[in-house]
């Protein structure tokens, strides 16, 4: 694609100062050949956002649309429908892009066909204390896997707070699912990967994310996350295994008590966790960060599971929902790692399988079943997978084949106890603190 024009879509809700800061940053962008337009969708704003923006000339083409409060997904769809550019760049209103963001997205789309570029969000967290620390860490951890050269992208990697894709591709996908109040990016990510689009992290597209979330908002969002995850599994049953709902995490004392009370009457549980919040400042003052984290984790889990229960109707219905997952399909490809890493990578790039079995001579090393919502395997994934997922199996197979040089130590018990060939289960969704 040569010299694409950008349409930057910004949904906003009662954050006129934040969106003004974003538009100021857009005005300072390094020039891109095709130029850009901005479309701000004021979603149920009552703080005069639209009036302020209309009365102000940011120095570039900027359209302001208004709509009754319908949620960010609907607002993004509305903005995209109004766009005239070749590339849509979605930015949340609390983002402040650095001057070369557009250039980085433009370079990405020139290089990668059918790409969805995910930009880096550098957190600037308003909350202080333990919560500020954990919130910043959570945001940074979003990019931990995507930064690895061998990362296998999955639907949860799509971040609509800062991403770009071709407008035609967005239209082909049918836009965001506006019925979801949360995880609408997961849902679009799922469809994009199923359609064969290439999600990629663009580290050079860096923007500051002014994260002003406080604890109460975070807890509310966890309820919405629970509801959204049920909707996702209702639509795509195979995703259940990769969502937190498939794993009942071990609750702490607060979580267990809250769950018991909620089983009697949800209002009792809600009242109890509302009170339990006051343990947090106490633990923080005396520096008990692990107790603090345990309580926070319990509160977050409580509201997530309340959302799950609310949307699914109960644990039996949830179990039925999770059991709808389709049976695994046949393994598509078998590769012999004894032929060398480069040869195996080449095969992966040629076949792009959904699932693969790795052998090393006569030894089965590992089986990677199909993972719904994850991109098809590429050669670049292989080294990362060996090193991080089945190093012990590989070492055992290599030792059995006599391929480990004689001067090196024999396999210690630690490796021998963990060298049975196994199946790798789907990875968990990204760590769930707040969206």
């Amino acid at each position, binding site marked *: 694609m040569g010299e694409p024009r950008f349409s930057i879509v910004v949904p906003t809700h009662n954050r006129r100062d934040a969106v003004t800061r974003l538009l100021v940053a857009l005005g300072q962008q390094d020039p891109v050949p095709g130029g850009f337009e901005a479309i701000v969708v004021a979603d149920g704003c009552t703080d005069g956002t639209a009036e302020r923006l209309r009365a102000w000339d940011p120095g570039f083409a900027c359209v302001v649309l208004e709509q009754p409060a319908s949620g960010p997904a609907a607002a993004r769809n509305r903005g995209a429908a109004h766009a005239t550019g070749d590339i849509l760049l979605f930015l949340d209103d609390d983002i402040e892009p650095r001057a070369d963001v557009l250039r980085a997205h433009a370079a990405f789309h020139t290089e990668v066909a059918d790409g969805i570029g995910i930009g880096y969000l550098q957190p600037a967290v308003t909350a202080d204390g333990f919560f500020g620390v954990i919130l910043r860490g959570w945001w940074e951890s979003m990019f931990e896997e995507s930064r690895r050269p061998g990362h296998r992208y999955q639907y949860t990697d799509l971040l609509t707070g800062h991403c770009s894709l071709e407008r035609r591709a967005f239209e082909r996908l049918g836009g965001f699912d506006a019925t979801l109040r949360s995880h609408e990016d997961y849902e679009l990510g799922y469809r994009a990967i199923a359609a064969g689009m290439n999600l990629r992290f663009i580290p050079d597209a860096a923007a500051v994310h002014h994260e002003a979330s406080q604890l109460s908002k975070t807890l509310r969002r966890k309820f919405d996350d629970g509801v959204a995850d049920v909707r996702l599994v209702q639509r795509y049953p195979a995703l259940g295994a990769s969502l937190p709902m498939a794993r009942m995490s071990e609750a702490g004392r607060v979580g267990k008590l809250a769950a018991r009370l909620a089983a009697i009457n949800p209002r009792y549980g809600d009242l109890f966790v509302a009170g339990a919040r006051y343990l947090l400042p106490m633990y923080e003052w005396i520096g008990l960060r692990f107790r603090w984290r345990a309580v926070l984790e319990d509160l977050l889990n409580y509201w997530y599971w309340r959302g799950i229960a609310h949307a699914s109707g109960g644990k039996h219905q949830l179990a039925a929902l999770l059991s709808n997952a389709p049976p695994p399909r046949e393994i598509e490809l078998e590769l012999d790692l004894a032929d060398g890493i480069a040869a195996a990578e080449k095969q992966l790039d040629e076949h792009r399988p959904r699932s693969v079995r790795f052998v090393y001579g006569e030894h089965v090393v590992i089986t990677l079943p199909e993972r719904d919502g994850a991109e098809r395997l590429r050669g670049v994934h*292989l080294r990362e997978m060996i*090193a991080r997922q089945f190093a012990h199996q590989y070492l055992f197979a290599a030792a059995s084949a006599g391929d*480990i040089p004689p001067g090196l130590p024999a396999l210690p018990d630690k490796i021998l106890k963990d060298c049975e060939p196994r199946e790798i289960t789907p990875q968990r969704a990204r760590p769930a603190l707040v969206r």
Partner: protein
Amino acid sequence: MATAIREVELSSPLSSIEHLKGYSRCLLVFRWRRRVVGRQFVPVVSDRIDTAAMEIAANQCGADALYRWLADTIGYDERQVVGTRALTATIAICTRERPEHLVRTLGAVARFAEAGHRILVIDNAPTTNRTYEVATQFRDVCYVCEPIPGLNVARNRAMREATTDVVAFTDDDAMPEPEWLDALIANFGDPRVQCATGLTLPIELETEAQELFEEVTPFARGFRRVVFDGQHDNPVEVGRVGAGANMALRREIIDLVGPFDERLDGGTPTCSGGDHEMFVRILAAGYQIAYDPAAVSWHHHRRTYREVRDTLRGYGVGVYAMFTGLLLERHEFGVLRLAWAWFRSAHLPELRRRVFHGPPTRTSSLILAELQGCAHGPAAWFASRRLRARR
């Protein structure tokens, strides 16, 4: 008798080590294609170590050597991230009246200047111009005089003087290897990593004091890379993280968590602890510290028993002074548990042994010197705070 130090490359066939006359044992440092993967003390028999003993020692390296072989074989570097830009670095050497050591260290780090990095010598509260004379012998070395005494004062001066992305610190009695700086810098691809530390090994164990020091408080922290994450790990447990003799920090860290605490470390009543206190603040703020054994530096331990005893006592003072500050100013009550755990595991057995089983050995005297230092730590912190307030 002394301990010899020999390096063994595991990618070549093992053979006996000869000519070890005058040594009772040997510290074997094992490498796999230049990367250190383990170390073992092996007794010297008839002035040599035979191949069988070498094989037994090499086998003790266990999984670390195998993981290294695996990474090497498949061409994997866990530190690699997409879109890493080349970072610039300053090598900072904080020194005080030790020109005979400094000249060796500068000789070892001079090569980094050829790669475009900056070398900074911070001369801390000098009483002679000998450091200046040594530093100016080297063409690419920048000499800075910091008149206020204190190792952390000097570290802060280095952070202020530096204009690069990263500032790497080495002691004036250490000899970093050629790969040292690149290995440290490679850890900063992830923006959460604010500090990297490396593997420090003894350059000689020729005296009994040096052997005792290595036995009681070795600098080595293992042979596999470990990332300490403030999001999950206890920030006050920084003993395993590394030491200021071999560390690099992002320059921006002082804007994020504040400068080195100038009430701590050498040149103040607290004697040490300034590096660890910085590690605590980095982790408590939720950032990461990477310990990377690929960044190897060889340290010249003190040669006399008295020096080693003073050093150990200083470590005790510094750790407990740091605990005092963390407890009183940051409400880190976790240090109480840590202080108790350290006392119970390291000091109490020695006290018990001394009471019930006779006079102290030279090792136990060092441990007790450390304990004396611990007892003095809180008072030293208050004294240092008073001094600092007066300045």
